[in-house]
């Protein structure tokens, strides 16, 4: 048929196929599983893939590569690349299917779990075994180990950061309005209402990111139903549509309805939210210890670090959880390729485990899950306070989406805008997530 001159009909058909196929082509083009081109016994470089949004890891490892780890770097040079956080799952899926994973890489939470795509294919290094063999396992803080294991189901990530989360507040604004640090949820809501009347943004969050709001739902659940409440949803013994879970979503929806997040919460981005707090326009913000980098920077922090207080997410009256259970996370999963592991990679891991904790604290004021082997002096007071909490914490809780699959996580974070703007009821929100969870089973 190709040899006869094209008739109008075939020409038109061709045009149609071209137009229609364009979208489908994108898909299938990327679905090519490729050949195994990797190979080789060991890596030729300490290739590193980190999230573009988090510059701390890459820059600190670069610093180490010219300092304490320069010998390791000479043997196996550091080769650092970044990927946008939103593209991590896609990139890792493709790299892994083409046998082209870097030595150490960021991966999606669901991917590194034992039943995840990377986990079940045995692509990930077990840090506990490896670091024990290398004799540096003691350099990882036990709290960080427990957080990583409870999220990922195994020691498949290094705690390059160890974050605890809570509410940072403006001491001056609280004092000026006669507010004591709230101990219960009701006190918190009352305080925020007072602050709203005073004309400031009571509680600012990066609403367009979604997670800062879902964190509040999760924390409410943990305070009300106890630290294992989300595990119960995961194993099916409870449902998000149960009234006690819906109650948590309703509590956060009420904050939105009362305007306690300020105007334009659903499109507010991280920089704007941070700036609101740091300039004194907002009285409080729920955030993680990574926010210390901004708080300790006088150029950004106009209200002064001494004016910033830090409190835990408050208790819920009659709840089974309590405010001593700090929400904690260990950053995005940073896994090492089992296949590319060799003695030189081992040397790098030893060097990182020994030196990273002190180095990142000294250079960037960041709290990590590594032991501080070299004492760090001149720690800013607020950082010291949070470091103290990390060291003393006996029990931590995860976050709302920690045990959810990728789709449920995304739906939780995108639809929460509808929840706090009142376009979606708490019942519908939780029902949507529960149906996602059921679909993923």
């Amino acid at each position: 048929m190709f040899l006869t001159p094209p008739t109008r009909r075939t020409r038109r058909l061709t045009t149609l196929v071209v137009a229609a196929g364009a979208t489908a082509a994108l898909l299938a083009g990327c679905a090519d599983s490729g050949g195994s081109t990797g190979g080789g016994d060991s890596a030729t470089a300490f290739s590193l893939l980190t999230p573009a949004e988090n510059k701390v890891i890459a820059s600190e490892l670069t610093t180490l590569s010219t300092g304490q780890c320069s010998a390791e770097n000479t043997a196996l040079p550091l080769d650092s690349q970044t990927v946008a956080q939103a593209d991590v799952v896609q990139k890792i899926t493709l790299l892994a299917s083409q046998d082209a994973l870097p030595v150490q890489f960021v991966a999606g939470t669901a991917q590194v779990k034992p039943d995840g795509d990377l986990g079940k294919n045995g692509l990930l290094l077990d840090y506990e075994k490896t670091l024990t063999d290398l004799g540096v396992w003691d350099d990882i803080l036990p709290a960080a180990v427990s957080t990583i294991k409870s999220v990922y189901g195994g020691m498949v990530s290094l705690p390059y950061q160890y974050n605890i989360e809570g509410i940072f507040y403006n001491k001056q604004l609280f004092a000026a309005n006669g507010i004591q640090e709230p101990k219960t949820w009701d006190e918190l809501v009352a305080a925020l209402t007072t602050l709203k009347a005073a004309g400031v943004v009571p509680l600012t969050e990066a609403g367009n990111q979604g997670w800062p709001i879902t964190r509040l739902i999760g924390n409410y659940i943990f305070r009300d139903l106890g630290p294992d409440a989300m595990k119960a949803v995961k194993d099916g013994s409870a449902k998000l549509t149960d009234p006690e879970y819906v109650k948590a979503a309703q509590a956060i929806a009420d904050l939105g309805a009362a305007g306690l997040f300020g105007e334009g919460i659903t499109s507010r981005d991280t920089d704007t939210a941070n700036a609101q707090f740091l300039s004194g326009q907002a009285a409080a913000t729920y955030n993680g210890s990574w926010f210390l980098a901004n708080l300790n920077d006088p150029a950004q922090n106009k209200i002064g670090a001494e004016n910033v207080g830090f409190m835990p997410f408050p208790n819920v009256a009659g709840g089974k959880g309590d405010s001593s259970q700090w929400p904690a996370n260990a950053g995005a999963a940073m896994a090492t390729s089992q296949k590319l592991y060799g003695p030189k990679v081992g040397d790098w891991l030893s060097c990182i485990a020994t030196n990273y904790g002190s180095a990142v604290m000294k250079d960037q004021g960041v709290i990590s899950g590594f032991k501080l082997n070299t004492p760090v002096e001149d720690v800013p007071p607020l950082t010291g306070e949070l470091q103290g909490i990390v060291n003393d914490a006996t029990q931590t809780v995860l976050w709302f989406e920690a045990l959810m699959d990728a789709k449920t996580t995304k739906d939780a974070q995108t639809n929460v805008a509808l929840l706090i703007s009142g376009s979606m009821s708490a019942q519908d929100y939780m029902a949507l997530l529960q149906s996602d969870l059921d679909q993923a089973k």
Partner: protein
Amino acid sequence: MRPAEGHNTVHRVLGDKKAILILLGPALLVYTLIKLVPVAWSFGLSFFDGNPLGGFTFIGFDNFVRFFNDPQAIHALGFTVLYAVVITIGQILLGYALALLYVFVLKNASNFVRTVVFFPAVIPTVAVGLLFRSMFAVGQNEGPVNAALDAIGLGSVDWFASGAGTFIVAILMELWRSMGFFAVLLYAGLLDIPEETLESARLDGATGLKLVRHIVIPLSLPVLLSSVIFSINNSLKVFDTILALNGGGPGTETTPLTLYMFNTVFSYSDYGYGSTIALVLTILCLLVTVFIFRSARRDITRN
């Protein structure tokens, strides 16, 4: 070489099937490899579950059953169609009105206006998305639209907190971006109408709307038709502007099929179901195009 000889050579070469094969072969091969093979591949994937890393399992028609039981998919389908219809109507009406303005009102002086109105079409779509996001912003970084609403006492609106608000902004944005393009496209069609025809119609007493209705529209029908197909197929496949504007949100309120497919494949690593969504979109485009062609062919024969 005399013209007749040249003509004969062309005839001889094109009469030779081998020559045609040599001439068309490479292009067809490339076309097949980068277009048809992936389409077929994607079609095949829609009967599987999984991704290249976790492996694929054959599940027959489960993905299609899932699609029609998936409220988000149905919503995305509905949004895609609604968006395409509204955008197509808007683009054609605005584009045609502008084209008429160029030809009959501004005449030879239309150069400048044409350029200005066309200008947004050359701005990268993502930039347009970000621009409109800022223009309609609310709160601390209030955009000019809300500032104006405040100034006239209507109070600002949080456009991106609701699906309807985002949809309105998305429509305004796309029309602003593309109306100049369609105006030029249709303008070229209007220029093809012979001046004598218009003149004689005028002598017969057809002026203004009457002239447009009975002479201009029928004579520019072919280019109008191409514009409709072009417009609807493009707007069915909208992706970048919506993503840049509000990420398909709030929630999945303004998520078209393309974005839902993208998320399903690349964020949720569900290649099979993503291919199914792509296939539905492909069929939709195909149906719409065939439908328009058919209805148009009837029109043309009637005239």
